[in-house]
């Protein structure tokens, strides 16, 4: 095995780092040059000198933070060079604009999956299988208990949940970027008959998606002063940060739900305090992670993001791939 320091990509206190390109990937501290996989805020840090991402990711980030930043964009597949290293973005299927990042130096290829999923999602480009030597994969849901239902099934469940409680306000919590748009897309294909209201943060993201050419059904922007009785029977989509917020007290006779991959576990569902949990995720489940590793033809794999203990051990026992761990010194 090589020393960590000789790897093309290594792990530092600011996040994944490619020394030769002097670029960090989704850094967690301000750095000189940041390659951004997607526009979720836990993958973005203010104060970097230079950002590089796909066009869609850049557009969403600018919309979210509401100001200009020094961000350079490249289309998917389009190769660019930093210090002689060939770099390109490839769809990761997580949300609109999300990408895997491929590094190529002297015919050694490294691929960082970023957050990814293999399920169908009409609001973003499908995951692209990229061949690599070294794979750095996310492992948010790295246990075989995670196996996603078809999104249409979950959407049908949501529709049933709303339709069968016409005397109530149904409040669904989910992430405002990506998940909300995906759910809107999926429920528009079910026999959903009610009004949909979205929180301003989600409403804004819907518009941003539309500007980028994605079809999102029309929703009403939730106004603070909305009369309670008008909302009966409708679906309100809010970001999870608003759960237990005092403004929710205005919604009398409501039922709450949470849409997340974690909701496939009963204990987490019960602990979450929501009435109902809908299991739907924009990450890869166990089978999808294993399939992705196989299809990438990688000989070496690292896991990053999430608990990878089980995956590491499982793959080591299978002995079909070299499982590596970053040695990281604080």
């Amino acid at each position, binding site marked *: 095995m090589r020393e960590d320091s000789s790897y093309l990509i290594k792990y530092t206190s600011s996040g994944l780092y490619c020394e030769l390109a002097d670029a960090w990937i989704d850094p967690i501290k301000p750095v000189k040059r940041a390659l951004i996989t997607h526009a979720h805020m836990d993958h973005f840090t203010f104060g970097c000198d230079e950002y590089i991402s796909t066009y869609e990711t850049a557009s969403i980030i600018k919309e979210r933070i509401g100001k200009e930043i020094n961000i350079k964009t490249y289309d998917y597949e389009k190769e660019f060079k930093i210090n002689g290293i060939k770099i390109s973005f490839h769809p990761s299927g997580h949300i609109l604009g999300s990408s895997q990042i491929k590094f190529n130096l002297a015919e050694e290829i490294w691929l960082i999956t970023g957050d990814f999923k293999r399920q169908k999602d009409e609001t973003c480009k499908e995951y692209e299988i990229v061949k690599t030597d070294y794979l750095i994969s996310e492992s948010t849901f790295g246990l075989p208990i*995670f196996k996603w239902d078809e999104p249409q099934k979950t959407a049908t469940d949501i529709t049933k949940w709303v339709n069968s409680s016409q005397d109530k306000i149904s409040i669904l919590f989910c992430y405002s970027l990506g998940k909300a748009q995906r759910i809107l897309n999926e429920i528009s294909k079910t026999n959903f008959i009610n009004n949909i209201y979205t929180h301003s943060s989600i409403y804004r993201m819907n518009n941003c998606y539309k500007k980028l050419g994605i079809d999102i059904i029309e929703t009403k922007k939730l106004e603070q002063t909305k009369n309670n009785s008008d909302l009966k029977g409708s679906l309100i989509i809010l970001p999870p940060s608003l759960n237990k917020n005092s403004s929710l007290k205005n919604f009398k006779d409501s039922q709450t739900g949470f849409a997340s991959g974690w909701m496939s576990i009963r204990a987490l*569902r019960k602990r979450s305090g929501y*009435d109902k949990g809908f299991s739907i995720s924009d990450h890869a489940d166990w089978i999808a992670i294993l399939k992705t590793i196989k299809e990438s033809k990688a000989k070496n794999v690292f896991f990053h993001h999430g608990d990878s203990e089980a995956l590491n051990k499982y793959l080591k026992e299978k002995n079909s791939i070299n499982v590596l761990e970053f040695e990281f010194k604080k």
Partner: protein
Amino acid sequence: MSLKKFSELFINLDSCNSTNKKIGILQNYFSSNEALENSWTIYLLTGKNNKRFISGRSLKTLFSEIYKYPLWLIDSCYLKVGDSAEVISLLLRNVITEKNTKYKDGSLHELLNKSFPELSILKEDDKKLRVKEIWETIPKENLLVINKILTGTFRVGVSIGLITKSIAKLINIDEAIISHRLMGDFIPSEESYKLLIDKKINPSELNYKPYPFLLANTFEKKIIDKSTNDFQFEWKWDGIRIQLIKRSGKVSIWTRGQDLVNKSFPELVEKISSIKDDFVIDGELLVWDFKQSLPLNFSLLQKRINRKAPSRSIQKNLPIIFIAYDILEINGEDQRDSNLEIRRNSLEKHLYNWLNESKEELSNIFRISDLIYPKNWEEVETFKNNSRDNGTEGLVIKNKKSIYTPGRKKGLWWKYKVDPMQLDAVLIYAKGGSGIRAGLYTDYSFALWKDGELIKFASAYSGLNNTEIKELDRWIRQNTIDRFGPVRSVRPEMVFEISFENIQISKRHKSGIAVRFPRITKWRKDKLIKDADTLENAEKLMLNK
């Protein structure tokens, strides 16, 4: 289509937080289902004697062997999920492909009466095949329920009270009747369900059944506005509450948990059988130290309950007594609508007669709860604070005008417990929780100082709120020194105030002491570990109590 229906019932109840809605769901279910299936449903929902056909461990092993799945991986999953039945249900979705299977809907009766009981007589290999067949022919939405029934862990957020309400509403009959019918044994059959929903009340039908217990509320300050003369005061014993029933000459001893425990206490059955009257008496069972005239540790009582057909020597070494609180029925006449004063008089009168008429042994085992007469509420306080002197845990205060009604109704009885004992102890081990606390370190062990060393003295898992649990979980992960299976030993740094009801010498523990009902009452972030209590302090508590 009934297993499917039951599975839907579980899912609906499980994701419903409103009591009224739950009653609606249950009513709907019962009215649209067959009697036999309903009886099994009640059996499962009331959780009376849910039998374990396969242990959680065996279920995991079976799955591992059938599908060549590493056991360690199943265990890793368990840490996240906290329920063997659920882990296996989730994993089954990875190994069963829908195309290959022919689904069939079974009935609860068939499963619980035939398929599952048969498993226990099968040899390992046949058992594997049978379980595999069950898993692969049942629609996947029902797997969780099936596995929970298999492992005897079927539970859903529905109380017996709620079931009682739903059935009472369904047939429009008094809840008390349904509640009484549901007491004691409930053997699932078409007949038993039909009896349960019969509008006609047959006086003899309830012959062997205990009455629903009247339970005490926690003491409320507002009652001190009234005179102490309005109340009856008794000691609160730490035994098991039971109903002693003698009807048509036959004795039955029912616990509050609705177990029939005649077999554990043959000496009581024998003595009671000699009494000439029939009766139902509410009271407490204790293991008694006759020399000191004090109750013995609750764990010894547990030992007696668990021992069916105890030998003479056990009966001699762990002698029991029954303390009568209340009389509910005498010679077939229900006394529960008389007020407490009248019932108490009746109890005293009858007991006096029985003791007089019997040979003297009856007075050894059959006693009456002594009344206490505090003159004012200050004296009540004093009595309560001294209750440990006679081995009780406080007072029970009863409204003299109260009738005996089921459950924890307001304004009838109160329990006024002595303040708990407390020690500040250091967190040394943590273990992953199960059930709703899966994936979090929530089972904690605490230690006290002895000669500069921390000695484990108690384990506790309740008392912290959700925010604290999460915070402590994070701290535990960051401060783990060592791991033994699911247990982590952590840097001794955190001090907690531990409260408990009683403290006793114990040879089984390294610390030499055992505490009862330990729980966390405060996270003492203000304290350093050197400020934690010593074992010596614990021993002092034991002497002073």
